[in-house]
């Protein structure tokens, strides 16, 4: 027997039996105590007789001096029960005939790097399959480091296709400790490009590393982000991060293209392991594509496409009655654009009394049916409006031109005392109504009107309209392809013939339960035999 070691034993070590909590084995010291407690001998069965004097001549002679009586045989049963319980508590580990293996697949983007004939992923899985073929009757479970909680199942052609298709979509991490069960061997298929994947929790290490990494040169597009130009909303500013994930200095040409065609290009020279940022400005477009020339072994990170739709200007249908202050606020808003009521692809409508907007379009309705008056009470924002988005309003400068009534289900976004000023109506189509006066000359001078308009359209469209950034990010180190520390670990040698350890505590507990049942039956029989006499005592 050998005490359990957390790390697997070296080559040539033979596991007979190990214990996860050997301290419990000290409970076996109770066995001599149990025998000593039974030194009085077997508990004899009592037979009631009518007159003891009749049997005096057949009385058993007492043991001779110095002769030791044998202990009660029941001590063996009770000692066995105690031993089973304490051995079970020590959590014995037995080598299992059937090897259980969890195959962890590094599904980072670098695993799609093309080696001589095929990608690292395909090559690594092929190597794993050939190694697993040498383990007879192995129970193999495949998991990816990008989605460790999802078991892909056995290593089949279908699972290989699934893993390859999902590579690079999620950043890989080290396996969670809950899945690093001791009864399984843990193999890792990786290219060793990401050192963090070897930092397993609890000082655990892979039992075997299948490393496939030959190519050491790669430049990749790591991140591309875009935002509206602050001076010209019809142009976008781009920021591209290019990383040299290889081991040599590289020179690449970065080209930007939109649906209208290539916009521009620039040439970069990047040191090994370094990154470079590229700025560019392009006209507004639904998407932009950045490419690296020439391509390298990892083609997947040589191109990056960014969807620019979140940066588009929303078209708002207005009517002729809309106050000039409102119209000016919409025209100057970088994310809004004025459109006529008849325009078909508007995303919102501003209704100032003509009721000409389409009924299925989110609508901001500005009510003005009476002379402007000052609201009474202090201005209060709804709790649904985040504090950072609220606008400081001066009640002295505000006027209301209509009277709003909140209906059940409505959400009052802004109120002055008990008077609702902005209401979000309940219903299938989003509708905001406001009684704020935007038509008086005094209102046109108020500086908060553009912010109010922005806030109301953000509430109407359920989106942030200012300072939007579109980004496509592959994560730090996505371009790294050169093996790092992993190579050293792989070369250090891992046991290839160690077998999984099976927890035998449950088996021992079942055995202990059976012995306990045996003991209870024996005690029951003893009680039944004695109850005929003892139970009848007055």
């Amino acid at each position, binding site marked *: 027997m050998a005490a359990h070691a957390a790390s697997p034993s070296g080559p040539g070590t033979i596991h007979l039996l190990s214990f996860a909590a050997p301290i419990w084995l000290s409970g076996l010291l109770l066995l001599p105590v149990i025998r000593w407690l039974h030194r009085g001998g077997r508990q004899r069965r*009592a*037979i009631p*007789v009518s007159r003891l004097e009749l049997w005096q001549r057949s009385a058993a002679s007492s043991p001779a001096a110095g002769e030791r009586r044998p202990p009660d045989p029941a001590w063996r049963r009770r000692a066995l029960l105690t031993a089973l319980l304490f051995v079970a508590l020590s959590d014995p580990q037995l080598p299992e005939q059937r090897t259980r293996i969890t195959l962890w697949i590094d599904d980072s983007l670098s695993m799609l790097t093309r080696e001589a004939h095929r990608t690292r992923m395909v090559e690594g899985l092929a190597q794993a399959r050939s190694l697993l073929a040498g383990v007879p009757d192995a129970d193999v479970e495949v998991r990816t480091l990008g989605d460790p909680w999802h078991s892909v199942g056995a290593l089949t052609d279908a699972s290989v296709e699934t893993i390859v298709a999902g590579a690079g979509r999620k950043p890989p991490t080290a396996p969670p400790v809950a899945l690093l069960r001791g009864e399984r061997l843990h193999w890792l298929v990786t290219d060793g490009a990401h050192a963090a994947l070897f930092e397993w929790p609890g000082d655990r290490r892979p039992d075997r590393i299948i490393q496939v990494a030959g190519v050491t040169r790669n430049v990749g597009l790591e991140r591309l982000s875009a935002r509206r130009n602050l001076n010209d909303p019809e142009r976008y500013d781009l920021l591209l991060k290019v990383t040299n994930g290889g081991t040599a200095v590289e020179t690449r040409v970065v080209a930007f293209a939109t649906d209208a065609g290539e916009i521009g290009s620039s040439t970069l020279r990047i040191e090994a392991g370094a990154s470079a940022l590229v700025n560019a400005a392009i006209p507004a477009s639904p998407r932009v594509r950045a490419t690296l020339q020439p391509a390298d072994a990892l083609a997947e990170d040589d191109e990056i496409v960014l969807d620019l739709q979140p940066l588009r200007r929303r078209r708002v249908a207005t009517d002729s009655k809309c106050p000039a202050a409102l119209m000016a606020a919409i025209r100057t808003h970088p994310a809004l654009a004025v459109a006529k009521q008849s325009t078909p692809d508007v995303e919102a409508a501003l209704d100032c009394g003509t009721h000409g907007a389409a009924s299925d379009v989110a609508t901001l309705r500005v009510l003005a049916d009476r002379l402007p008056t000052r609201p009474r009470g202090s201005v209060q924002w709804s709790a649904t409006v985040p504090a950072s988005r609220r606008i400081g309003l001066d009640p002295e400068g505000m006027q209301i031109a209509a009277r709003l009534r909140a209906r059940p289900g409505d959400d009052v976004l802004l109120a002055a005392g008990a008077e609702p000023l902005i209401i979000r109506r309940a219903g299938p189509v989003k509708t905001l109504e406001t009684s704020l006066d935007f038509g008086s000359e005094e209102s046109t001078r108020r500086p908060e009107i553009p912010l109010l308009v922005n806030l109301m359209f953000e509430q109407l469209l359920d989106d942030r309209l200012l300072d939007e950034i579109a980004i496509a990010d592959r994560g730090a180190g996505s371009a790294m392809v050169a093996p790092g520390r992993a190579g050293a670990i792989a070369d250090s040698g891992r046991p290839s013939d160690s077998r999984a350890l099976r927890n035998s505590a449950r088996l021992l507990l079942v055995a202990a339960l059976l012995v306990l049942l045996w003991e209870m039956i024996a005690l029951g029989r003893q009680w039944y035999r004695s109850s005929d006499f003892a139970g009848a005592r*007055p």
Partner: protein
Amino acid sequence: MATPALIRGVLPSESELQSFARAAAHLLTERLPHALGSRTVRRRAGVGIQHLDHRDYTAGDEVRHIDWRQTARRRRPIVRRFESESVSDWIILLDASSSMSVHGAAKWHAAVHMAAAMSYALLDHGHRVGLLAFGARVLAECPRGRGRHHYAAIAGQLAALQPARAGERSALGVCARLLHGAASVFTISDFLADDEMCSDLSALLQRCTALHALQVTDSAEMELREAGDFDLVDVETGARMQTRAGEHAETLAAAERAAMTDRLRGFCARSGIAFTDWDVTNPWQHTLLRHLVRAQSIC
């Protein structure tokens, strides 16, 4: 005399009792006034009005029977004894100690049958019958009475009685102080006690006109039916003794039991006590008739 339905399973059936009463009729009639003929009528002490003789006064005797003239002459209390009439008093003493309950209480059931049959027959012939069940103390008492209703009372007592399965000792002498006046005493017991209850029998003999002792034995209780080491426990005293069960031990115990019976038989013969040793495997009718026949020559 009908046996109550509830106790039919415990006691002998009505037909058994009637047939036994008929068979025992001539044995239970002590004097036949109209059948003198060649038969010799033995005069004996009992309840009656015809003076028989004198004897020393003992505690419990009726004061009105003291013969003051004889007392003055002999300078100690002397009571008159009267000739027994044909109808006399009988007291049945039934052992209800724990020793009667061993081995399935076979001895107890047999003793209850015997007591019921004896009561029935005596009452059937006009005698007054009382019942005392004893252990370490008097456990149940049915006063003397006569008639079929009295049998129902005695039968009810017998059916309700159950010996304690442990801890109840045998002390026949406790019944002596309850014996008043002249009466014949019929004792049914296993007589498993110190000195086989001889001292208790002596005490009883002083307080009755005739004493019968019927020893109930069960040969099966001498068989342990086990082998190996055991603790034998006396059901009355609770004393324990280690023994190695086996045929040899059973043989020794049976011999000891026979010796005890012989000692008791000898004592009874010397004391004028009608004694019968009855193994419960034998029918109670034959045993009781044989005992009554033997008692005619002894008492």
